[in-house]
Every structure is written in structure tokens, then in C-alpha cells.
């Protein structure tokens, strides 16, 4: 027994193991919360629904109790709370979110599966692009040796950060899709086509993705740029920057290895968090462009009271946020040696 605890103690010293356990803990806590919250209301969803329908149809209430019991048995709601909880957890572990209510008998899994690739494809590319461009712009803006004209180029772009991305999306649609007709008005691909793995279809997908992508990139560019600019200016005041100059280093080395390398550390944390929300997408942009992604699916599910789909999507957000944090926790010691894998 003693050796077991000692072994466990050693395991806990491993940074990655501790981070992973923390990741599992977060997901467990969050999914327990989404299990408990609806049940705290004390209402019986089946009976409520049946009563509502009965009132609408003007039926007699005879047999309603029996009907409710039958449905509760079907959904497993007649069992004690802990049994329900265990069943719920079993389903979660197998990533089985049950059937969709609105598109019965389609499963939630297949609904999410159809749309996840669109959101993941669009938003992961767009998030990295915005991060890369914004951070670079911010780094150049916060670097005293940058040519002065950059101020005039970047600053107007950064003001776009003040505009909500869905408004920007509407403006972009109006100008580039409606008036100029350079890009399609909506959709992930042309209505007449079916998804297939071909070059022409890929081009079509990219063509459709440019406007929604641009609206998110333009709106979030400022966020990354302003954060990076601030950190660059803070880094300028550090002693090691003076020392770097006293060492007679080339400007480009001071810029990348000294200033950017240190200023980018807080940016990566923000990147992890924004990657975590990639799965839910930018709901409004997907709705505006009728993009076949998760955000649009979530919007439809909320509209149609499709509780199982909503629950499945929320679980995905939780897992992806947790996963993103876990990955950045693992990657962070590589970026910042002061954060150690060993302890602390």
C-alpha cells in the first residue's frame, strides 16, 4: 500500500499527468453541472409537455398520468437520480448524446458530425490567421524601429476591432456579395452541388468561406494586435532589452528572439482560449451566412427546443475548451522555461 501511494506521489509530480487529471476533473465537474441544473427546477419535462399538448388539443386528462409514466420509463426518468446520473455518464463516456428531438430519429452525433467539419475547417484556419496577422501587426506597431508608415497602415485596420463581427459580416455581404457579386451570399457550397472530395469542390468551399472568414479575421485582428502591441511596449522597458542593444545585436534578432519571444507569451494563453471556442464557432456569422457549421446547428436547435442537441453541443464546448487549455499547458513550458514540467 505504501509503495502504491509513493508511486502515485511520483506520478503527480509529472506535469503532464497532473495537467491531464485536471482536464478530466474539469470535464467531469462541468458535465455534472449540466446534468444537475435542469433537475434542480423540480419540474417534470414529460408531464409539462403532455399537459401543454393536452391543453392545446382540448383532450380530456384521463390517462395522462399513465402516459407520462410510460414516457418517463422510456426516457429512463423514473429511475432514482443516481441511476440516471450513472446512465448519463455512461453515455457521455461513449460520446452518445441520444436522438435529436427535432430531426428524430437522426442522432445528435450524426447532426454534430455533419456540421463539425465545416466549423472546424473555417474557424481553426481563421483563428490562426487572425492570431498570426494580428500578433505580427501588434509586434511591428510596438517596435520603435518599425518604419513610421506602418502606423498609418495598421491603425485604421485596428479600428475595425470596435465593430462587432456580425455587423461587419452584414457590411461585407452588402458590398462584396450583393453589390459587387464577387462572392456568394450564403452557404458552405453551391446549393446545386453535393459535397465530394474534388478540386473544384474545394475551390468552391474556399470561395464560400472567404466572406465569413474575413469578417471574423478583420474583427479579431485588433484584439490580437492591441494585446501584442501592449506587451511589446512593456518588454521594451525590460533590462534585457537594454542589454541586447548593448550587446550590439542585429535589429532583427532583438525583434524576434528578445522582444517578440517574450511578448508573445500571454498571447498564446489567449490563443488557447479562443481555440477552445472554435467548435461552437461564431454563431452569428454562421447564421448570417447560413454556413452549415456547428453555430448554425446550435441556433436551429435552440429555435426548435432540441434539448439533446443543445446538451451535446455544450458538452463539446466544454471538452474543446478543456482540451485547448490542456494542450497549451503542455506546450507552455516549451515557450517559457520558467514554467517547468517537473514541479510547481
Amino acid at each position, binding site marked *: 500500500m505504501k509503495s502504491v501511494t509513493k508511486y502515485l506521489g511520483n506520478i503527480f509530480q509529472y506535469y503532464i499527468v497532473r495537467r491531464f487529471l485536471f482536464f478530466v476533473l474539469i470535464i467531469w465537474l462541468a458535465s455534472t453541472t449540466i446534468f444537475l441544473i435542469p433537475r434542480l427546477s423540480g419540474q417534470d419535462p414529460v408531464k409539462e409537455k403532455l399537459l401543454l399538448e393536452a391543453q392545446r388539443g382540448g383532450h380530456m386528462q384521463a390517462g395522462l398520468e399513465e402516459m407520462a409514466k410510460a414516457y418517463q420509463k422510456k426516457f429512463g426518468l423514473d429511475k432514482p437520480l443516481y441511476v440516471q446520473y450513472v446512465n448519463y455518464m455512461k453515455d457521455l463516456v461513449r460520446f452518445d448524446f441520444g436522438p435529436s428531438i427535432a430531426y428524430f430519429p437522426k442522432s445528435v452525433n450524426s447532426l454534430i458530425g455533419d456540421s463539425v467539419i465545416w466549423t472546424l475547417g473555417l474557424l481553426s484556419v481563421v483563428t490562426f490567421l487572425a492570431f498570426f496577422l494580428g500578433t505580427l501587426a501588434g509586434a511591428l506597431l510596438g517596435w520603435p524601429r518599425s518604419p513610421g508608415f506602418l502606423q498609418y497602415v495598421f491603425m485604421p485596420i485596428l479600428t475595425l476591432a470596435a465593430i462587432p463581427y456580425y455587423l461587419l459580416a452584414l457590411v461585407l455581404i452588402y458590398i462584396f456579395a450583393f453589390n459587387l457579386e464577387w462572392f456568394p451570399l450564403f452557404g458552405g457550397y453551391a446549393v446545386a452541388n453535393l459535397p465530394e472530395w474534388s478540386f473544384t469542390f474545394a475551390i468552391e468551399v474556399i470561395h464560400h468561406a472567404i466572406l465569413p472568414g474575413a469578417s471574423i479575421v478583420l474583427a479579431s485582428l485588433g484584439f490580437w494586435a492591441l494585446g501584442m502591441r501592449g506587451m511589446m511596449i512593456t518588454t521594451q522597458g525590460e533590462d*534585457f532589452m*537594454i542589454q541586447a*542593444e548593448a*550587446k*550590439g545585436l*542585429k535589429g532583427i534578432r532583438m525583434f524576434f528572439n528578445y522582444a517578440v519571444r*517574450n511578448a508573445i507569451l500571454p498571447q498564446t494563453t489567449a490563443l488557447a482560449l479562443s481555440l477552445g471556442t472554435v467548435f461552437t464557432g461564431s454563431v452569428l456569422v454562421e447564421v448570417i451566412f447560413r454556413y452549415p457549421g456547428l453555430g448554425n446547428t446550435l441556433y436551429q436547435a435552440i429555435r426548435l427546443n432540441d434539448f439533446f442537441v443543445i446538451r451535446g453541443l455544450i458538452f463539446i464546448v466544454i471538452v474543446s475548451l478543456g482540451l485547448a487549455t490542456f494542450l497549451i499547458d503542455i506546450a507552455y513550458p516549451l515557450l517559457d522555461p*520558467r514554467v517547468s514540467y517537473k514541479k510547481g
Partner: protein
Amino acid sequence: MTSSSFKGLRVKDLQVYYDTPEGVVKAVDGISFSLPQGKRLALVGESGSGKSTLSMALMRLTRAPGRIAGGNIFLDEDDILDLDVEEMRLARLSKISLVPQGAMNSLNPVLRIKDQILDGLFDHQVFGSKKITKDEQLSKVNELLSAVELLPSVADMYPHELSGGMKQRVAIAIATSMDPKVIVADEPTSALDVVVQRTVMQTLGRLQEGLEASIVLVGHDMGLVAQFADFVGVMYAGRMVELGPVNSVFEKPLHPYTRLLIRSLPTLENKEDFVGIPGLPPPLLNLPPGCTFCTRFGRENKNTPPWKEISKDHWISECEVCSDIGK
């Protein structure tokens, strides 16, 4: 000392001003000194006297709103204020190098020590244009580290894994990596305890002698200065008030400020009452001409005191109004 054959550092009437919205702050106001090759000059003075501003100006690292308003900094024959930006970059580390104040934060926290030693060498083409092997690079790093009494294993460490004294040794290793002619050490030991201070200064002194470099040591620790330096320059309100061989200045201080400064030091013999200097230095903003030390005692001398060589190599800023103070 004829200027044509002079070897070392020669500063002539150097002025470093800070432009502020309220007016010009003359942080260094007309400082001149000559430091022959291989000699050690210590600059002392209280906070705000312009020591650090002067040391940054010697590296031409004065940052806005500061600017070097006038004067010359000769390194052997050449005025480094005449160099263009790229020439100045190449002169740093190779001709004039800096041991920074508080080495705690002067190393890049995300780079290994060996990379921070090597990057300066790479940017000065020390290894020529040809590719050199990792082994050759490492042997250069080890050579520099062992010169400052650090183990080769330090090369692979990050700054946060080192103690304050070790970091300062790394800083010295970097500063001496290209055999500079002048080393500017800006309070190199101010963050260290006295035992470490001593050993670090010994290391710095040994390397400086080996390189036959001149050293400008900025500090306010008079004891350290007395042990280490050949010459001492006393600064007050942006001006040099006394400059001379260290023995001469400590035994026969000629300027009242130097006298009071030395009297304020605790000694083993005199433990009871050491005297402070009353008042504060004048604010440097829009400083009127005249003797800056007189004002501290409510006296006035409207003429800027002349910079005079009283005995060999012993200079003071001679003001007849306040010269009796502290006698």
C-alpha cells in the same frame, strides 16, 4: 597626454539632456575626463547625480526623451558619436561593452545562457561567414564561462536557474567575450551581498587586467570604489565636481562635496556619529548657471566654477564661495 597618441577613453564636455514638457533636464552637463588604457575609473555620487545617464551615454544607449546634446566620446582616436548606427552597433561589445546594473533581469528569460553568449558573437561575425560546428561554439562558450569561474553546465541553463552572483558572472562573460577596449560597469554588484560582491569584482578586475581594457565603474559604494579603482570621479547634479587618483581624492579631498561624502562613511574607527550631508541636490530641471553645491547651503555663486587641475591628474570644480564647507 597628447591627444594624438592617447590610448583609452576620453570624454570631452559631454552633455546629456532630457527634453520634458516642463523644460530641459541637464542630467549630464559638461563632463570631461580621460581614462588611459588599462586603468579603472569609478564614478560616485548620490542618486540622480547623472552616473547612470553618463554610463548609458558612453554606450550611446541614451533613449528618448534623453539625447546626447553635445561633446565628444573618444575611443582611442575615434569619436563614437560620429559613427553611424550600424558602425555603432558593431562597436558595442567589440570595442565598448556593458556590464549592466542589476543583472537579475538583464538576461533574456527564455534563452539558454549559451545562446545569449553566442548571439552577440554571431552578430559581430566573430566566427567569420563560414559555418562553425556546435562543438566549436560550445568550446568558445566554455572558455568564456570558465574565465568567470562558472561550470560548463551553466551553458545549458536558463537565467532563472542561476543565482544573482552567477547571473552577474554571465553578464561579465558576455561583456568580455570580444575583448573590448572599454568596459562600462553600471553598479554591477548593487543587488548582491557583500561576499559575492567581492568575488564578482575580483573576477571583473582580473579579466579587465588580462584584456588591458579600461573600465568605468559606476557605483555609490565608496568602500568598493576605494579598493577597486585607480581614479575616482565624484558627480554632483549632473556635473563632475572632483576627479583624481583614488588615494589623492580619499586622503586630500579638495571639493566640499567630496569631503562631506567621505565623512558620511562609517569606518571601523569612527562608529558613533557619522555625519550626513544636509539638504538635497537641486532639481535638475531648468538649472540656473552657477555653483550647484552652494545652493544646498543657502549660498550663491552665479558663475559656473572653473574645472581646474590642482595637482597632477587631480581636478576639481573650484568654487570660492563654498570651498570652506566641511574643512
